[in-house]
């Protein structure tokens, strides 16, 4: 498996660290109801298809990346920098 880092280019899987679902980028605001925190921390969909995950390029540019991939076909359709994503 190879990921194309927007800065470093195409790199081997071993340079990256997997963190989890993109949901971690959407932290509930202060005072949000408990159900939202519950969902943020614990509830994940187990999708057969396109998912968005957080990866860390730990042996390269040390940037957090959002990787869009397909769990059925293993196709990787996008890699974006978390730092430069549209908010």
């Amino acid at each position, binding site marked *: 498996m190879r990921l194309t880092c927007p800065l470093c280019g195409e*790199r081997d899987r071993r340079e990256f660290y997997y963190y989890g679902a993109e949901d971690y980028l959407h932290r509930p605001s202060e005072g949000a109801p408990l159900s939202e925190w519950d969902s943020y921390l614990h509830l994940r969909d187990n999708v057969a298809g396109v998912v968005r995950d957080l990866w860390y390029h730990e*042996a*390269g*540019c040390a940037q957090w990346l959002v990787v869009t991939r397909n769990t059925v076909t293993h196709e990787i359709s996008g890699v974006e920098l978390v730092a430069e994503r549209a908010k």
Partner: protein
Amino acid sequence: MPDLIAKSALEGRSLALGGVTLAEVDPGPITSIALYPGGTKTAAKGLRTLGLAMPGPNSFIEKKGARIVWTGREQAFLIGVAPPAIEGAALTDQSDGWAVLALSGVAAVEVLARLVPVDLRLAACPVGTALRTQVNHMNAVILRTGDYGFEILVFRSMARTAWHEIENAMHMVQARAGTKI
């Protein structure tokens, strides 16, 4: 203050095997330049006094013994000269934190191919390329300094490990050179 003696990590050692030479080099001062948000313009002005600019990803620029190396998003290492006054960026002295190894020779690329998970052949990695990647399990910055030459920056605490890994790979490449497949 007592007069302290600066010592390099590997006492300047060198090794030649199978036409490949590995040597520790003294890079001079190393300064990290990390841009503050919106600091691009003012930092560029400071670097212009050396005839340099912030390098693009995966590259380094050299001018009159001063070298500036891309080391990450909005970050670079200035190597070989004392830093000028630069506004709009955090400057930190990294000189003592790194060991620099020079690997040269026609088969140098084959030695690194055993350790580095990136294509370092000249077509994919021309002179002037700077990569942040791994040497086996060690994080490193690799510079393509010539058609047959590389410089490898590793954390100083990893200097002897890096030397050991590369020396092993040099032995392997040398042994392989005499055999027909």
